[in-house]
């Protein structure tokens, strides 16, 4: 069953992300894919995550497909104009990649090429719109395509944003533009997520709650200070501080969060950021 079919059937879905290497050694990447492909329903491949130049998401998704996994092609609007974005959507389709997560993308100065020219010709909403156009056999210029692709389009939302309302307005805009599923920014506060879901439910699209594996208290503090929309509450930081085996604690917390939020949404999206080998342990502990 594809991701589209699984979400359509109401099955609780598990996805996880992998990041391609900075370079052409795909050894570790493929190992992670091998490890994940039978444990999760689909694997996201990040697109120059945090604006750091590396092997691309399209190549990564192709490799995932080759290995028999189901890829979710993450696309940001930071590095390509509308010509390149539309072309890569077509490229993805001919490689058998159907799931696309449409993102705006971090700004260039956050990455390792801060001197690059930022593009942002389109943004998450207009990228969804472009993909919808292609599905209808037309490009953004209104020109006919020979053969139309078909996608399962997704987008991102930040349930912990304050204020929340602008996020919900943007979510509505994304749904109207064609988003059929959402994967969220990391959530550490089930209460906040519940509030978010109360509002988000009206859009009638499946939401996969985002879980980022904590590896230390310092990492949690860093995210609190620097990452928008992520807030790790003090109790969790203290718990990490006290733990002897930090990583094991992180796995335990991730599993607990999943259990607490499982019934509020339609799936979970795990971002282990370099510790993909821990994903099966998280899923085991969460009873998934």
């Amino acid at each position, binding site marked *: 069953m594809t991701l589209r079919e699984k979400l359509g059937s109401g099955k609780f879905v598990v996805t996880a992300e992998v990041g391609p290497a900075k370079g052409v050694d795909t050894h570790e990447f493929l190992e992670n894919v091998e490890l994940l492909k039978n444990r999760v329903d689909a694997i996201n491949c990040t697109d120059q995550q945090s604006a750091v130049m590396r092997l691309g998401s399209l190549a990564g998704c192709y490799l995932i497909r080759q290995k028999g996994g189901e890829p979710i092609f993450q696309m940001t609007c930071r590095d390509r104009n509308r010509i390149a974005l539309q072309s890569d959507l077509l490229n993805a389709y001919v490689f058998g990649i159907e799931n696309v997560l449409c993102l*705006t993308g971090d*700004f260039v100065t956050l990455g390792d090429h801060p001197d690059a020219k930022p593009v942002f010709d389109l943004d*998450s909403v207009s990228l969804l719109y472009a993909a919808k156009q292609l599905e209808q056999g037309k490009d953004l210029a209104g020109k006919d395509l020979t053969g139309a692709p078909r996608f399962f389009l997704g987008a991102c939302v930040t349930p912990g944003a304050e204020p929340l309302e602008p996020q919900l307005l*943007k979510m509505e*805009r994304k749904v109207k533009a064609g988003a059929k599923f959402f994967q969220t920014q990391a959530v550490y506060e089930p209460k906040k997520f519940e509030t978010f879901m109360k509002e988000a439910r009206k859009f009638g699209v499946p939401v996969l709650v985002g879980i980022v594996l904590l590896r230390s208290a310092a990492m949690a503090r860093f995210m609190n200070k620097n990452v*928008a929309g992520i807030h790790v509450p003090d109790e969790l930081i203290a718990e990490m501080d006290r733990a002897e085996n930090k990583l094991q604690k992180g796995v335990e917390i991730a599993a607990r969060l999943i259990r607490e939020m499982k019934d509020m949404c339609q799936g979970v999206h795990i971002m282990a950021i370099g510790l993909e080998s821990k994903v099966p342990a998280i899923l085991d502990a969460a009873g998934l």
Partner: protein
Amino acid sequence: MIVSQLKPLQEILGYLNGERSVFIVGCKGCAEVCHTGDEAQVLDMKQKLEQEGKAVTGYCVIDFLCDKALVKMRLMAHQSEIQAADSLLVMTCGIGVQAVAAVVNKLVHPAANTINMGGSRGEWRGAERCRECGDCVLDMTAGICPLTACTKGLLNGPCGGAKDGRCEVEPEVRECGWHLIYERLNKLGRLDKMTGRPVLKDYRKMMPPKELRSTLMWALEQQETKV
């Protein structure tokens, strides 16, 4: 000189859709030279809008709409007319529209597209900026330019990077432009403007039309010979 060009009447009427009354603001600075906001243009617009069934509660032509302090002072004298209107139509460049939007508590519509600033920011003293995009979208953003106020120049709402109203890029110095837009639209009760159809920009319009693409002096001369 800042070169602006009136938008087609249909586009302006689209902005006023659902509104009954409007107050018009004109500009005697660059907009007078370009004939986008001088007294004659304002009166002409007033007549056209009235023909379309809109009530014009009043109008005011100000020396330099890019001078926020002056704008505030001059508009004071028209307070009751402005209060009586559903919105304001501002007939000048992107900076002037933003300056007016910053001092009135009403929705503001741009009547012109800003094409070329010729390196000048007019009497600009405030935070408002314009990128001469040639297709002004200030109508949907409560008079705050998303091309300049948002670091990424996003047109369809905030990215996920805003934190406490600050931008993900240099939060110490940058506010999130979309947060400001959200707050103002919220205050004006027009959050519906944030969930409209996807907006794409026509970047061709960023290039000034051929006749204006030469020097600033040349642009001025062109305008003068047309008088």
